[in-house]
């Protein structure tokens, strides 16, 4: 995007829309970011790498998983692989955004890709629903990112540098699974998704002892399989009822 694009009043308005929308939800992810920061140094990550984690990865769930794997002294590669599996869902966002970034250069597209997160994608979807042919969608996304990224980094850093003030007896790490309960409740929208969640959850415990600590990856695959089977089941059931 050239500077002339940016001077367009509609572009600027969209950018500020993004800033406003994000500011409204910043408090809701504050505890999660704090805990991610605290957990990363407690797990044994060096301070500089702990700061680089939210800055470069910028995806809370995978940050938390990476931290857990480091803490349980899994091999570095299994920790990286598990974190990447957590982020595979972003390929869906990438595919959805792809037709809207055709006019951008490779460098600009890289920049757009680098900051893609669940929250931003959800906000963009909402805006698209209200205004399907919005030419300023990426400017809106820039506005979202201009708040999300620095605030996420800042909150994580507060956790990294001030987290030790919180006594261990508070069990602050427990806020991570609690945060995911909220995310999970928002992400199950069909019976097959429910089946995937149930089997994925149970499998994570049953498969915990798997060699190389590949239990999380295996649990995701088990959940996926259960979801696919349930999809077929639902299909069969509806055609049977229709017939």
């Amino acid at each position: 995007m050239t500077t002339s694009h940016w001077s367009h009043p509609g572009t600027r308005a969209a950018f500020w829309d993004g800033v406003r929308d994000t500011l409204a939800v910043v408090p809701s992810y504050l505890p999660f970011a704090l805990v991610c920061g605290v957990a990363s140094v407690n797990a044994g990550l060096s301070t500089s790498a702990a700061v680089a984690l939210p800055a470069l990865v910028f995806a809370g769930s995978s940050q938390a998983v990476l931290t857990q794997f480091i803490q349980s002294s899994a091999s570095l590669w299994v920790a990286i692989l598990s974190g990447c599996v957590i982020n595979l869902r972003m390929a869906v966002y990438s595919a959805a955004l792809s037709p809207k970034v055709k006019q951008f250069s490779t460098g600009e597209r890289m920049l757009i890709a680098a900051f893609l997160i669940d929250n931003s994608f959800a906000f963009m979807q909402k805006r698209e629903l209200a205004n399907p042919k919005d030419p300023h969608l990426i400017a809106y996304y820039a506005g979202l990112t201009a708040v999300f990224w620095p605030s996420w980094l800042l909150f994580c850093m507060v956790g990294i540098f001030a987290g030790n003030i919180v006594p261990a007896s508070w069990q602050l790490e427990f806020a991570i699974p609690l945060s995911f309960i909220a995310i999970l409740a928002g992400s199950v929208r069909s019976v097959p998704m429910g089946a995937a969640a149930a089997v994925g959850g149970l499998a994570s415990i049953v498969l915990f002892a798997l060699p190389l600590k590949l239990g999380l990856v295996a649990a995701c695959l088990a959940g996926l399989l259960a979801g696919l089977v349930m999809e077929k089941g639902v299909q069969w059931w509806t055609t049977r009822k229709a017939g």
Partner: protein
Amino acid sequence: MDNTQSWIVVLGLAVGTFLIRYSFIGLLADRTMPHWLDRALKLMVPAIFAAIVLGGVVMVGGQVADLTQWPRYAAAAVAFIVAIASRGSILGTVIAGMAVLHGLPWLLR
């Protein structure tokens, strides 16, 4: 874990995550995502999150938390109800869960 190892995991995850994010925006920009992959990834999301939740609630230091650690289970159960009632409010769910984790044992002391 020393500084080099720390940076290896962080950079490894950063590069991997970037490639996923850049996949259809850049690397495969001329292709549409195959339908089966789209379906599979969407089903994987709840599986992933549920695995993180149950692992985080049930496992403590590599062991299944027994019933002496019941506040964890009580907190998770209340958090689950709050999450559904609030339609996925992270702040509300975390506050409710942490309140039960610490408040209930204190009340029953």
